[in-house]
């Protein structure tokens, strides 16, 4: 199995397009860091208006922990696009190049082959998140230092003590790994049906965009739908920054996402095993 995964990983990391995601995340993080370095105080003053009307805020708000939170909030919306670029290409890309039929002539079961492709996709997803964690947390701390983390929520303000933050980020990135794997599993599943990778990439992004809009709009009709949308649970990492941590909903969201991953994977195996491969 490991050999199969290695081959799939080789295929992924051999393609230049794989590195577009790493460069894109690097560029976005560096731009955000530069923006905060140059004009962070004004940005903070604008964002803090609702609070500073009543309170004098003293101390260093602008620190590595806050910037990492902003980057996570911004990037976890965009990272799914970068993940679908690879996940949506896993099967459909082979079909497009005409190598899928050839690949299936090897003495490996379809399920094992698919599992190897899926695990290689997850390795890529995790590598992207580790890169993102390094840039957004380690580099932010290096440039801006540490301190208390102030989070503005819709109805409350949470201030977390500086020495109580790092483990939350570890948890947040672990949660993000589950969330992004769900996106990868969806794109991978859709990839089974297509003959080229554009279809699954666009379909996955469309699903995520529509679901995210439904998840973020505070309208009663949509509120009933929210618990059933996986995008509602994708931002569950934020629950780790509550005080106290909302463990039950966070764990529930993680389990729901894991169930999504398993269902998408099993559905992929089922469909792929039944599929008549013509390309």
């Amino acid at each position, binding site marked *: 199995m490991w050999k199969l995964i290695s081959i799939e990983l080789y295929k992924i990391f051999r393609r230049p397009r794989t590195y577009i995601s790493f460069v894109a995340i690097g560029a976005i993080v560096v731009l955000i860091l530069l923006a905060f370095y140059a004009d962070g105080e004004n940005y903070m003053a604008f964002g803090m208006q609702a*609070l500073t009307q009543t309170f*004098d805020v003293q101390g260093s708000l602008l620190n590595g922990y806050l910037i990492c939170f902003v980057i996570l909030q911004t990037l976890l919306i965009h990272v799914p696009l970068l993940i679908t670029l690879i996940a949506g290409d896993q099967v459909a890309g082979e079909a497009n190049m005409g190598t899928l039929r050839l690949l299936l002539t090897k003495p490996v079961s379809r399920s094992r082959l698919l599992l190897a492709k899926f695990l290689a996709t997850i390795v890529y997803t995790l590598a992207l998140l580790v890169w993102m964690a390094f840039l957004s947390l380690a580099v932010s701390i290096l440039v801006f230092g540490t301190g*208390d983390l102030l989070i503005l929520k819709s109805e409350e*303000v949470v201030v977390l003590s500086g020495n109580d933050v790092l483990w939350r980020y570890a948890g947040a990135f672990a949660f993000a790994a589950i969330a992004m794997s769900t996106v990868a599993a969806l794109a991978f599943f859709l990839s089974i049906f297509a003959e080229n990778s554009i279809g699954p990439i666009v379909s996955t992004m469309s699903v995520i965009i529509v679901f995210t809009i439904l998840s973020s709009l505070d309208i009663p009709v949509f509120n009933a739908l929210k*618990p059933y949308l996986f995008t*509602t649970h994708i931002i569950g990492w934020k*629950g780790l920054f509550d005080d106290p941590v909302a463990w039950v*909903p966070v764990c529930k969201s993680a389990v729901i996402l894991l169930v999504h991953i398993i269902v998408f994977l099993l559905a992929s195996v089922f469909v792929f095993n039944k599929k008549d491969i013509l390309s």
Partner: protein
Amino acid sequence: MLHRCLPIFLLFISYMVSNHTSAQSADDLLKKVKSRLEKVKDYAADGNMKMDVDFIRIPDAKVKVYFRQPDQFRVIKENGISLLPKGGLSISLNALLSGKEFVAVSGGTTNAAGRSLSVVKLLPIKENSEIVLATLYIDAASALVYRTVATTRDNGTFETQLSYGKYADQGLPDEVVFLFNTSAYKLPKGITMEYEGSKKPADRKTASNGQGKISIRYERYEINKGVPDSIFK
């Protein structure tokens, strides 16, 4: 005619005398309080700050509190963030009273926390003073202020409750409880991208009637040792 007017005249005289005496005693009491406070030119204190506001979750923190005459006051959390209500100068009695001129009017006496306290109402002489009216509840014997209620021009009414210990001689409290009004806080969910699983503050709300509370328990004061300008910048 004379015997009819005499009682009224005497009543008027006695009212004037008692009024003058009480005004004088309020002034004297304020002078006693101020003279005690003015001995403290500056201080740096270590303390523990606890904040209780419906919509703010902030851990209790060790803070440094700085004061310098006449009314420079700052609460700093080392490497951290501290939130203080705007206009919360009266959290420090020294900052509330020092360097300011007031007309003191006696408001009688009241009992609080097992003490008989003189009520002194202060009207600022300066027209553009931030404080519009302040009421001090003073223990006349020790000239220590145990409670203040200050109404400000822009930031509403603040109340402080003070308790004293080893720094009572300098008029510095061991603990200050500061009560203030809080206005509603809300940001659109579209901006904050709220996680649905997070607990809503309404679930945890206490019956605080929109009032916030900050308490600072002082552990140690360093008095008249000088405080650098950079602290107040």
